[in-house]
Protein backbone atom coordinates (compact mmCIF):
# COMPACT_ATOMS: atom_id res chain seq x y z
CA UNK A 1 0.00 0.00 0.00
CA UNK A 2 2.85 2.31 0.96
CA UNK A 3 4.50 1.70 -2.36
CA UNK A 4 1.24 2.50 -4.19
CA UNK A 5 0.90 5.80 -2.27
CA UNK A 6 4.50 6.67 -3.06
CA UNK A 7 3.84 5.86 -6.69
CA UNK A 8 0.72 8.07 -6.72
CA UNK A 9 2.58 10.93 -5.08
CA UNK A 10 5.01 10.88 -7.96
CA UNK A 11 2.24 11.37 -10.50
CA UNK A 12 1.13 14.64 -12.01
CA UNK A 13 -1.83 12.97 -13.71
CA UNK A 14 -3.54 9.67 -13.21
CA UNK A 15 -6.43 8.42 -15.35
CA UNK A 16 -8.11 5.14 -14.49
CA UNK A 17 -10.82 3.28 -16.40
CA UNK A 18 -12.02 6.40 -18.23
CA UNK A 19 -15.06 5.89 -20.44
CA UNK A 20 -16.76 8.59 -22.50
CA UNK A 21 -19.86 8.34 -24.64
CA UNK A 22 -20.87 10.99 -27.15
CA UNK A 23 -24.48 10.25 -28.03
CA UNK A 24 -24.72 6.57 -28.87
CA UNK A 25 -21.01 6.16 -29.54
CA UNK A 26 -18.53 5.24 -26.83
CA UNK A 27 -15.43 7.13 -27.97
CA UNK A 28 -13.16 6.24 -25.05
CA UNK A 29 -13.33 2.75 -23.58
CA UNK A 30 -11.42 2.19 -20.37
CA UNK A 31 -8.43 4.52 -20.64
CA UNK A 32 -5.60 4.18 -18.11
CA UNK A 33 -2.88 6.78 -18.29
CA UNK A 34 -0.13 7.99 -15.95
CA UNK A 35 2.03 11.08 -16.22
CA UNK A 36 4.98 11.16 -13.80
CA UNK A 37 5.89 14.56 -12.40
CA UNK A 38 8.32 16.53 -14.52
CA UNK A 39 7.97 14.32 -17.63
CA UNK A 40 6.65 14.90 -21.13
CA UNK A 41 4.08 12.28 -22.07
CA UNK A 42 2.54 12.16 -25.52
CA UNK A 43 -0.83 10.84 -26.59
CA UNK A 44 -0.90 10.00 -30.29
CA UNK A 45 -3.60 8.62 -32.50
CA UNK A 46 -5.33 9.15 -35.84
CA UNK A 47 -8.16 11.64 -36.37
CA UNK A 48 -11.28 10.57 -34.50
CA UNK A 49 -9.33 8.40 -32.06
CA UNK A 50 -10.61 10.32 -29.04
CA UNK A 51 -7.49 12.43 -28.33
CA UNK A 52 -9.34 15.71 -28.02
CA UNK A 53 -12.17 14.07 -26.03
CA UNK A 54 -9.57 12.74 -23.59
CA UNK A 55 -8.05 16.19 -23.21
CA UNK A 56 -11.48 17.78 -22.72
CA UNK A 57 -12.09 15.29 -19.90
CA UNK A 58 -8.78 16.22 -18.29
CA UNK A 59 -9.86 19.88 -18.37
CA UNK A 60 -13.31 19.17 -16.96
CA UNK A 61 -14.95 20.23 -20.23
CA UNK A 62 -16.38 16.78 -20.95
CA UNK A 63 -18.06 14.58 -18.37
CA UNK A 64 -16.93 10.95 -18.49
CA UNK A 65 -19.50 8.19 -18.12
CA UNK A 66 -17.12 6.22 -15.88
CA UNK A 67 -13.60 6.33 -14.52
CA UNK A 68 -11.46 8.59 -12.42
CA UNK A 69 -9.12 11.49 -13.12
CA UNK A 70 -6.66 12.72 -10.50
CA UNK A 71 -4.30 15.63 -10.92
CA UNK A 72 -1.48 15.74 -8.35
CA UNK A 73 -3.47 13.17 -6.39
CA UNK A 74 -6.62 15.31 -6.18
CA UNK A 75 -9.91 14.71 -7.97
CA UNK A 76 -10.54 17.02 -10.90
CA UNK A 77 -12.12 20.32 -9.84
CA UNK A 78 -11.73 24.10 -10.10
CA UNK A 79 -9.05 24.14 -7.37
CA UNK A 80 -6.73 21.65 -9.02
CA UNK A 81 -7.33 23.22 -12.45
CA UNK A 82 -5.48 26.24 -11.06
CA UNK A 83 -2.32 24.11 -11.28
CA UNK A 84 -2.94 23.32 -14.95
CA UNK A 85 -1.97 25.30 -18.03
CA UNK A 86 -3.67 24.62 -21.36
CA UNK A 87 -2.58 25.37 -24.91
CA UNK A 88 -5.53 24.73 -27.23
CA UNK A 89 -5.59 23.68 -30.83
CA UNK A 90 -5.81 26.58 -33.28
CA UNK A 91 -8.37 29.04 -31.89
CA UNK A 92 -11.19 30.05 -34.21
CA UNK A 93 -10.77 33.77 -33.70
CA UNK A 94 -13.14 36.47 -34.90
CA UNK A 95 -11.01 39.22 -36.45
CA UNK A 96 -13.55 41.83 -35.40
CA UNK A 97 -12.73 41.23 -31.72
CA UNK A 98 -9.88 43.66 -31.16
CA UNK A 99 -8.36 42.13 -28.01
CA UNK A 100 -4.64 42.91 -28.20
CA UNK A 101 -1.93 40.49 -27.05
CA UNK A 102 -1.18 42.84 -24.11
CA UNK A 103 -4.85 42.78 -23.04
CA UNK A 104 -5.12 39.02 -23.58
CA UNK A 105 -2.17 38.26 -21.31
CA UNK A 106 -3.44 40.73 -18.71
CA UNK A 107 -6.76 38.87 -18.52
CA UNK A 108 -5.20 35.95 -16.68
CA UNK A 109 -2.69 37.75 -14.45
CA UNK A 110 -4.25 38.16 -11.02
CA UNK A 111 -2.60 41.58 -10.53
CA UNK A 112 -3.87 42.97 -13.83
CA UNK A 113 -7.47 41.75 -13.76
CA UNK A 114 -8.67 45.35 -13.97
CA UNK A 115 -6.38 46.07 -16.92
CA UNK A 116 -8.88 48.41 -18.53
CA UNK A 117 -7.99 51.13 -16.02
CA UNK A 118 -4.23 50.55 -16.25
CA UNK A 119 -1.61 52.45 -18.21
CA UNK A 120 0.10 50.52 -20.98
CA UNK A 121 3.56 50.98 -19.48
CA UNK A 122 2.41 49.65 -16.08
CA UNK A 123 0.84 46.61 -17.73
CA UNK A 124 4.09 45.96 -19.62
CA UNK A 125 6.01 45.92 -16.35
CA UNK A 126 3.82 43.04 -15.18
CA UNK A 127 3.94 41.19 -18.48
CA UNK A 128 7.72 41.38 -18.84
CA UNK A 129 9.44 38.02 -18.58
CA UNK A 130 6.33 35.91 -19.05
CA UNK A 131 8.12 33.79 -21.62
CA UNK A 132 11.82 33.73 -20.72
CA UNK A 133 14.12 33.91 -23.71
CA UNK A 134 11.29 35.03 -25.99
CA UNK A 135 10.59 38.71 -26.33
CA UNK A 136 6.84 39.15 -26.72
CA UNK A 137 7.32 42.94 -26.85
CA UNK A 138 6.85 43.31 -30.63
CA UNK A 139 3.59 41.36 -30.43
CA UNK A 140 1.97 43.16 -27.49
CA UNK A 141 0.19 45.81 -29.58
CA UNK A 142 -1.08 43.33 -32.18
CA UNK A 143 -4.65 42.00 -32.06
CA UNK A 144 -4.70 38.33 -31.02
CA UNK A 145 -6.87 37.52 -34.04
CA UNK A 146 -4.27 39.02 -36.41
CA UNK A 147 -1.33 36.84 -35.35
CA UNK A 148 0.19 34.14 -37.55
CA UNK A 149 -0.21 30.54 -36.43
CA UNK A 150 3.28 30.35 -34.90
CA UNK A 151 2.98 33.73 -33.14
CA UNK A 152 -0.43 32.80 -31.72
CA UNK A 153 0.88 29.52 -30.31
CA UNK A 154 3.79 31.34 -28.61
CA UNK A 155 1.33 33.80 -27.07
CA UNK A 156 -0.91 30.92 -25.96
CA UNK A 157 2.07 29.22 -24.29
CA UNK A 158 2.87 32.48 -22.47
CA UNK A 159 -0.79 32.71 -21.42
CA UNK A 160 -0.84 29.11 -20.21
CA UNK A 161 2.28 29.68 -18.08
CA UNK A 162 0.71 32.56 -16.14
CA UNK A 163 0.15 31.50 -12.55
CA UNK A 164 3.07 29.02 -12.73
CA UNK A 165 1.14 25.84 -13.55
CA UNK A 166 2.77 22.52 -12.76
CA UNK A 167 1.03 20.52 -15.48
CA UNK A 168 0.77 21.71 -19.08
CA UNK A 169 -1.77 20.20 -21.47
CA UNK A 170 -1.11 20.76 -25.17
CA UNK A 171 -3.81 19.89 -27.71
CA UNK A 172 -2.39 19.50 -31.23
CA UNK A 173 -0.57 22.77 -30.58
CA UNK A 174 1.07 23.05 -33.98
CA UNK A 175 -1.95 22.34 -36.16
CA UNK A 176 -1.86 24.95 -38.93
CA UNK A 177 1.69 26.09 -38.10
CA UNK A 178 4.38 25.89 -40.81
CA UNK A 179 7.37 23.56 -40.41
CA UNK A 180 9.91 26.09 -39.02
CA UNK A 181 7.25 27.46 -36.67
CA UNK A 182 6.47 23.95 -35.53
CA UNK A 183 10.08 23.19 -34.73
CA UNK A 184 10.62 26.42 -32.81
CA UNK A 185 7.37 25.79 -30.92
CA UNK A 186 8.54 22.40 -29.70
CA UNK A 187 11.95 23.84 -28.81
CA UNK A 188 10.12 26.45 -26.73
CA UNK A 189 8.13 23.73 -24.95
CA UNK A 190 11.32 21.73 -24.34
CA UNK A 191 13.10 24.76 -22.86
CA UNK A 192 10.13 25.69 -20.67
CA UNK A 193 9.95 22.07 -19.52
CA UNK A 194 13.65 22.06 -18.65
CA UNK A 195 13.57 25.39 -16.81
CA UNK A 196 10.39 24.84 -14.82
CA UNK A 197 10.39 21.05 -14.44
CA UNK A 198 6.82 21.02 -15.71
CA UNK A 199 4.84 17.89 -16.37
CA UNK A 200 3.52 17.98 -19.92
CA UNK A 201 0.81 16.06 -21.74
CA UNK A 202 1.23 16.50 -25.46
CA UNK A 203 -1.68 15.38 -27.63
CA UNK A 204 -0.51 15.16 -31.20
CA UNK A 205 -0.54 13.25 -34.43
CA UNK A 206 2.91 14.62 -35.24
CA UNK A 207 5.00 11.51 -34.67
CA UNK A 208 8.42 13.01 -35.37
CA UNK A 209 8.07 15.71 -32.71
CA UNK A 210 6.69 13.17 -30.25
CA UNK A 211 9.68 10.96 -31.00
CA UNK A 212 12.08 13.77 -30.21
CA UNK A 213 10.52 15.25 -27.11
CA UNK A 214 8.34 12.75 -25.23
CA UNK A 215 9.67 10.30 -22.68
CA UNK A 216 6.57 8.13 -22.80
CA UNK A 217 3.97 7.65 -25.50
CA UNK A 218 0.40 6.36 -25.41
CA UNK A 219 -1.12 5.33 -28.75
CA UNK A 220 -4.86 5.87 -28.61
CA UNK A 221 -7.67 4.70 -30.82
CA UNK A 222 -10.74 4.51 -28.58
CA UNK A 223 -8.62 2.37 -26.27
CA UNK A 224 -4.93 2.56 -25.42
CA UNK A 225 -3.49 0.39 -28.18
CA UNK A 226 0.04 0.49 -26.84
CA UNK A 227 2.25 2.46 -24.49
CA UNK A 228 5.93 2.73 -23.79
CA UNK A 229 9.01 4.72 -24.70
CA UNK A 230 8.90 6.46 -28.11
CA UNK A 231 11.20 3.77 -29.54
CA UNK A 232 8.91 0.99 -28.32
CA UNK A 233 5.70 2.58 -29.54
CA UNK A 234 7.03 3.79 -32.86
CA UNK A 235 7.65 0.31 -34.13
CA UNK A 236 5.31 -0.56 -36.96
CA UNK A 237 3.30 -3.26 -35.18
CA UNK A 238 2.28 -1.03 -32.30
CA UNK A 239 1.38 1.88 -34.48
CA UNK A 240 -0.51 -0.29 -36.93
CA UNK A 241 -2.90 -1.10 -34.07
CA UNK A 242 -3.51 2.58 -33.43
CA UNK A 243 -3.46 3.93 -36.96
CA UNK A 244 -4.94 1.00 -38.89
CA UNK A 245 -3.47 -1.56 -41.26
CA UNK A 246 -2.03 0.75 -43.91
CA UNK A 247 0.36 2.64 -41.71
CA UNK A 248 4.05 2.61 -42.67
CA UNK A 249 6.24 4.72 -40.41
CA UNK A 250 9.72 5.71 -41.52
CA UNK A 251 12.27 8.20 -40.35
CA UNK A 252 14.99 10.00 -42.21
CA UNK A 253 17.48 12.54 -40.98
CA UNK A 254 17.50 16.21 -41.98
CA UNK A 255 20.40 16.86 -39.70
CA UNK A 256 21.72 16.02 -36.30
CA UNK A 257 18.94 14.77 -34.10
CA UNK A 258 16.19 15.75 -36.50
CA UNK A 259 13.72 13.08 -37.51
CA UNK A 260 10.95 13.75 -39.94
CA UNK A 261 7.84 11.75 -40.55
CA UNK A 262 5.76 12.47 -43.63
CA UNK A 263 2.55 11.38 -41.96
CA UNK A 264 1.04 10.30 -45.24
CA UNK A 265 0.02 6.93 -43.92
CA UNK A 266 -1.94 8.30 -40.95
Amino acid sequence: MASIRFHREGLALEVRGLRVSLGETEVLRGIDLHVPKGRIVAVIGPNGSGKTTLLRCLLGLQKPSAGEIRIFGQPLGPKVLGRVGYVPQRLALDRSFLLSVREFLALRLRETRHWIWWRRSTLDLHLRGLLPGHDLGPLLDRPVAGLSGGQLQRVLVAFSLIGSPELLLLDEPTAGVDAPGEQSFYELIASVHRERQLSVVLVSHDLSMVYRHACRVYALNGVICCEGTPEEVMNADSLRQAYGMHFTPYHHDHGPGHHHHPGGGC
Partner: protein
Amino acid sequence: MESMLTEPYMQRALLIAVLLAPLCGVLGVFVTARRMSFFSETVAHGSLAGVAIGLALGIDTSWPILGVSLVVALLVLWLRENTDLLTDTIMALLMSGFMAAGVVGFSKLRGFRGELHRYLFGDILSVGWPDVALAGVVCGFVLVFLVGRLSPMALMTLSEDLAHVSGTSVRRLNLVFVVLLTLTVALSIRLLGIILVTSLLVIPPATARNVASTLRQELLLSLVCGLLSGILGVVASYQFDLPCGPAIVLTAVGLFLVSLGARFLRRPPRPSARP
Protein backbone atom coordinates in the same frame (compact mmCIF):
# COMPACT_ATOMS: atom_id res chain seq x y z
CA MET B 1 -33.56 73.98 -26.91
CA GLU B 2 -34.41 75.34 -23.48
CA SER B 3 -38.10 74.53 -23.89
CA MET B 4 -37.14 71.01 -24.95
CA LEU B 5 -35.34 70.44 -21.66
CA THR B 6 -38.25 71.73 -19.60
CA GLU B 7 -40.68 69.23 -21.11
CA PRO B 8 -40.99 66.33 -18.64
CA TYR B 9 -41.36 63.73 -21.42
CA MET B 10 -38.14 65.00 -23.03
CA GLN B 11 -36.35 64.86 -19.70
CA ARG B 12 -37.42 61.23 -19.37
CA ALA B 13 -36.48 60.38 -22.96
CA LEU B 14 -33.05 62.00 -22.64
CA LEU B 15 -32.39 60.35 -19.30
CA ILE B 16 -33.26 56.89 -20.58
CA ALA B 17 -31.11 57.53 -23.68
CA VAL B 18 -28.16 58.56 -21.51
CA LEU B 19 -28.59 55.43 -19.38
CA LEU B 20 -29.26 52.80 -22.04
CA ALA B 21 -27.59 53.91 -25.28
CA PRO B 22 -23.98 53.73 -23.98
CA LEU B 23 -24.87 50.43 -22.30
CA CYS B 24 -26.01 49.04 -25.65
CA GLY B 25 -22.72 50.26 -27.16
CA VAL B 26 -20.58 48.42 -24.60
CA LEU B 27 -22.66 45.22 -24.50
CA GLY B 28 -22.78 45.31 -28.30
CA VAL B 29 -18.99 44.77 -28.47
CA PHE B 30 -19.52 41.34 -26.90
CA VAL B 31 -22.83 40.68 -28.66
CA THR B 32 -21.28 41.14 -32.11
CA ALA B 33 -18.02 39.30 -31.32
CA ARG B 34 -20.05 36.37 -29.96
CA ARG B 35 -22.42 36.53 -32.96
CA MET B 36 -25.46 37.10 -30.76
CA SER B 37 -27.16 39.84 -32.81
CA PHE B 38 -29.90 37.46 -33.87
CA PHE B 39 -30.44 36.59 -30.22
CA SER B 40 -31.25 40.21 -29.36
CA GLU B 41 -33.53 40.38 -32.43
CA THR B 42 -35.35 37.32 -31.12
CA VAL B 43 -35.81 38.81 -27.65
CA ALA B 44 -36.98 42.16 -29.03
CA HIS B 45 -39.45 40.73 -31.55
CA GLY B 46 -40.75 38.20 -29.03
CA SER B 47 -41.52 41.02 -26.59
CA LEU B 48 -44.43 42.13 -28.82
CA ALA B 49 -46.41 39.40 -27.07
CA GLY B 50 -45.60 41.19 -23.80
CA VAL B 51 -46.94 44.48 -25.20
CA ALA B 52 -50.21 42.78 -26.16
CA ILE B 53 -50.51 41.17 -22.68
CA GLY B 54 -49.89 44.52 -20.97
CA LEU B 55 -52.47 46.34 -23.09
CA ALA B 56 -55.04 43.57 -22.67
CA LEU B 57 -54.63 43.65 -18.90
CA GLY B 58 -54.62 47.43 -18.84
CA ILE B 59 -51.30 47.62 -16.97
CA ASP B 60 -47.99 49.39 -17.64
CA THR B 61 -46.47 47.43 -20.55
CA SER B 62 -42.90 47.67 -19.18
CA TRP B 63 -43.35 44.69 -16.86
CA PRO B 64 -44.90 42.26 -19.36
CA ILE B 65 -42.28 43.32 -21.94
CA LEU B 66 -39.50 42.52 -19.45
CA GLY B 67 -41.18 39.27 -18.40
CA VAL B 68 -41.81 37.94 -21.92
CA SER B 69 -38.30 38.97 -23.06
CA LEU B 70 -36.77 37.00 -20.20
CA VAL B 71 -38.97 33.99 -20.98
CA VAL B 72 -37.86 34.08 -24.63
CA ALA B 73 -34.17 34.42 -23.66
CA LEU B 74 -34.30 31.56 -21.15
CA LEU B 75 -36.23 29.39 -23.61
CA VAL B 76 -33.44 29.90 -26.18
CA LEU B 77 -30.86 28.74 -23.63
CA TRP B 78 -32.97 25.80 -22.42
CA LEU B 79 -33.81 24.52 -25.90
CA ARG B 80 -30.17 24.87 -26.96
CA GLU B 81 -29.02 22.70 -24.06
CA ASN B 82 -31.81 20.15 -24.16
CA THR B 83 -32.52 19.56 -27.86
CA ASP B 84 -30.46 18.86 -30.97
CA LEU B 85 -31.97 21.88 -32.76
CA LEU B 86 -29.57 24.44 -34.22
CA THR B 87 -29.47 27.72 -32.31
CA ASP B 88 -30.60 29.64 -35.41
CA THR B 89 -33.61 27.36 -35.75
CA ILE B 90 -34.53 27.80 -32.08
CA MET B 91 -34.32 31.58 -32.32
CA ALA B 92 -36.30 31.79 -35.57
CA LEU B 93 -38.96 29.54 -34.05
CA LEU B 94 -39.32 31.59 -30.86
CA MET B 95 -39.09 34.95 -32.63
CA SER B 96 -41.82 34.17 -35.13
CA GLY B 97 -43.98 32.31 -32.60
CA PHE B 98 -43.99 35.06 -29.96
CA MET B 99 -44.31 37.85 -32.53
CA ALA B 100 -47.25 36.10 -34.20
CA ALA B 101 -48.88 35.72 -30.78
CA GLY B 102 -48.35 39.46 -30.20
CA VAL B 103 -49.89 40.43 -33.56
CA VAL B 104 -52.87 38.13 -32.97
CA GLY B 105 -53.27 39.72 -29.52
CA PHE B 106 -53.22 43.22 -31.05
CA SER B 107 -55.78 42.21 -33.66
CA LYS B 108 -58.21 41.28 -30.90
CA LEU B 109 -57.68 44.50 -28.92
CA ARG B 110 -59.95 47.40 -29.75
CA GLY B 111 -58.57 50.94 -29.84
CA PHE B 112 -54.88 50.05 -29.68
CA ARG B 113 -54.04 49.76 -33.41
CA GLY B 114 -52.13 53.07 -33.25
CA GLU B 115 -50.06 51.78 -30.33
CA LEU B 116 -48.46 49.13 -32.53
CA HIS B 117 -46.51 51.73 -34.53
CA ARG B 118 -44.97 53.35 -31.44
CA TYR B 119 -43.83 49.96 -30.11
CA LEU B 120 -42.40 48.93 -33.47
CA PHE B 121 -40.42 52.14 -34.08
CA GLY B 122 -40.05 53.80 -30.67
CA ASP B 123 -41.64 56.94 -29.27
CA ILE B 124 -40.18 59.50 -26.90
CA LEU B 125 -43.66 60.17 -25.55
CA SER B 126 -44.01 56.61 -24.34
CA VAL B 127 -41.16 56.75 -21.78
CA GLY B 128 -42.48 56.92 -18.22
CA TRP B 129 -40.68 57.55 -14.94
CA PRO B 130 -40.90 53.85 -13.99
CA ASP B 131 -39.00 53.08 -17.22
CA VAL B 132 -36.30 55.59 -16.28
CA ALA B 133 -36.03 54.09 -12.79
CA LEU B 134 -35.81 50.55 -14.22
CA ALA B 135 -33.18 51.70 -16.72
CA GLY B 136 -31.18 53.20 -13.84
CA VAL B 137 -31.28 49.91 -11.93
CA VAL B 138 -30.30 47.82 -14.98
CA CYS B 139 -27.57 50.31 -15.85
CA GLY B 140 -26.19 49.94 -12.31
CA PHE B 141 -26.20 46.13 -12.54
CA VAL B 142 -24.49 46.13 -15.94
CA LEU B 143 -21.82 48.56 -14.75
CA VAL B 144 -21.09 46.45 -11.67
CA PHE B 145 -21.00 43.34 -13.88
CA LEU B 146 -18.66 44.90 -16.42
CA VAL B 147 -16.30 46.37 -13.85
CA GLY B 148 -16.10 43.11 -11.90
CA ARG B 149 -16.24 40.55 -14.70
CA LEU B 150 -14.72 42.28 -17.71
CA SER B 151 -11.68 39.97 -17.87
CA PRO B 152 -13.63 36.69 -17.71
CA MET B 153 -16.15 38.15 -20.17
CA ALA B 154 -13.41 39.08 -22.66
CA LEU B 155 -11.76 35.69 -22.23
CA MET B 156 -15.06 33.86 -22.67
CA THR B 157 -15.65 35.84 -25.87
CA LEU B 158 -12.27 34.73 -27.18
CA SER B 159 -12.52 31.08 -26.09
CA GLU B 160 -14.95 29.43 -23.68
CA ASP B 161 -12.47 26.60 -23.07
CA LEU B 162 -9.66 28.97 -22.08
CA ALA B 163 -12.08 30.83 -19.80
CA HIS B 164 -13.07 27.56 -18.12
CA VAL B 165 -9.46 26.51 -17.56
CA SER B 166 -8.73 29.96 -16.16
CA GLY B 167 -11.32 29.40 -13.44
CA THR B 168 -14.43 31.02 -14.94
CA SER B 169 -17.80 29.36 -14.58
CA VAL B 170 -18.68 29.81 -18.24
CA ARG B 171 -22.28 28.63 -17.87
CA ARG B 172 -23.04 31.05 -15.02
CA LEU B 173 -21.26 34.00 -16.66
CA ASN B 174 -23.11 33.36 -19.91
CA LEU B 175 -26.44 33.27 -18.08
CA VAL B 176 -25.76 36.58 -16.29
CA PHE B 177 -24.69 38.18 -19.58
CA VAL B 178 -27.82 36.93 -21.36
CA VAL B 179 -30.13 38.20 -18.59
CA LEU B 180 -28.50 41.66 -18.48
CA LEU B 181 -28.53 41.89 -22.27
CA THR B 182 -32.21 40.91 -22.35
CA LEU B 183 -33.15 43.52 -19.77
CA THR B 184 -31.20 46.20 -21.65
CA VAL B 185 -32.87 45.28 -24.95
CA ALA B 186 -36.35 45.13 -23.39
CA LEU B 187 -35.98 48.59 -21.82
CA SER B 188 -34.48 50.11 -24.96
CA ILE B 189 -37.60 49.16 -26.93
CA ARG B 190 -39.34 52.31 -25.61
CA LEU B 191 -36.84 54.51 -27.44
CA LEU B 192 -35.83 52.45 -30.43
CA GLY B 193 -38.78 50.22 -31.06
CA ILE B 194 -38.89 46.47 -31.53
CA ILE B 195 -37.71 46.58 -35.14
CA LEU B 196 -34.64 48.76 -34.63
CA VAL B 197 -33.45 48.02 -31.10
CA THR B 198 -30.68 45.64 -32.23
CA SER B 199 -29.10 48.37 -34.34
CA LEU B 200 -27.78 50.12 -31.22
CA LEU B 201 -26.03 46.88 -30.26
CA VAL B 202 -24.44 46.50 -33.70
CA ILE B 203 -23.68 49.93 -35.20
CA PRO B 204 -21.67 51.57 -32.36
CA PRO B 205 -19.26 48.58 -32.07
CA ALA B 206 -18.87 48.56 -35.87
CA THR B 207 -18.10 52.30 -35.75
CA ALA B 208 -15.56 51.76 -32.99
CA ARG B 209 -13.84 48.95 -34.88
CA ASN B 210 -13.17 51.26 -37.81
CA VAL B 211 -10.82 53.38 -35.72
CA ALA B 212 -9.85 51.34 -32.63
CA SER B 213 -6.93 48.94 -32.38
CA THR B 214 -7.44 47.47 -28.90
CA LEU B 215 -10.39 46.15 -26.95
CA ARG B 216 -10.14 49.03 -24.49
CA GLN B 217 -10.42 51.59 -27.31
CA GLU B 218 -13.24 49.59 -28.89
CA LEU B 219 -15.26 49.53 -25.67
CA LEU B 220 -14.70 53.22 -24.99
CA LEU B 221 -15.48 54.38 -28.53
CA SER B 222 -18.53 52.14 -28.75
CA LEU B 223 -19.81 53.62 -25.48
CA VAL B 224 -19.30 57.17 -26.77
CA CYS B 225 -20.95 56.39 -30.14
CA GLY B 226 -23.93 54.82 -28.37
CA LEU B 227 -24.26 57.84 -26.08
CA LEU B 228 -23.99 60.37 -28.94
CA SER B 229 -26.47 58.43 -31.09
CA GLY B 230 -28.96 58.25 -28.22
CA ILE B 231 -28.82 61.93 -27.26
CA LEU B 232 -28.65 63.36 -30.79
CA GLY B 233 -31.38 60.98 -31.98
CA VAL B 234 -33.78 62.00 -29.20
CA VAL B 235 -33.08 65.68 -29.85
CA ALA B 236 -33.61 65.20 -33.61
CA SER B 237 -36.83 63.33 -32.91
CA TYR B 238 -38.11 66.33 -30.91
CA GLN B 239 -36.85 69.04 -33.23
CA PHE B 240 -37.99 67.49 -36.52
CA ASP B 241 -40.96 65.48 -35.29
CA LEU B 242 -39.39 62.17 -36.30
CA PRO B 243 -40.04 58.70 -34.93
CA CYS B 244 -37.47 58.25 -32.19
CA GLY B 245 -35.99 54.85 -33.16
CA PRO B 246 -35.16 55.74 -36.77
CA ALA B 247 -33.72 59.12 -35.65
CA ILE B 248 -31.30 57.37 -33.26
CA VAL B 249 -30.37 54.73 -35.83
CA LEU B 250 -29.71 57.32 -38.57
CA THR B 251 -27.46 59.25 -36.18
CA ALA B 252 -25.57 56.01 -35.43
CA VAL B 253 -25.25 55.30 -39.15
CA GLY B 254 -23.93 58.85 -39.70
CA LEU B 255 -21.23 58.28 -37.06
CA PHE B 256 -20.38 54.96 -38.68
CA LEU B 257 -19.87 56.67 -42.06
CA VAL B 258 -17.58 59.26 -40.45
CA SER B 259 -15.52 56.47 -38.86
CA LEU B 260 -15.38 54.62 -42.17
CA GLY B 261 -13.99 57.77 -43.81
CA ALA B 262 -11.43 58.11 -41.01
CA ARG B 263 -10.40 54.49 -41.48
CA PHE B 264 -9.87 54.88 -45.21
CA LEU B 265 -7.91 58.10 -44.68
CA ARG B 266 -5.60 56.24 -42.31
CA ARG B 267 -5.45 52.96 -44.22
CA PRO B 268 -6.65 53.25 -47.83
CA PRO B 269 -8.60 50.19 -49.00
CA ARG B 270 -6.37 47.63 -50.67
CA PRO B 271 -6.91 47.30 -54.42
CA SER B 272 -8.73 44.13 -55.31
CA ALA B 273 -6.49 41.22 -56.28
CA ARG B 274 -8.85 40.37 -59.09
CA PRO B 275 -8.20 42.00 -62.49
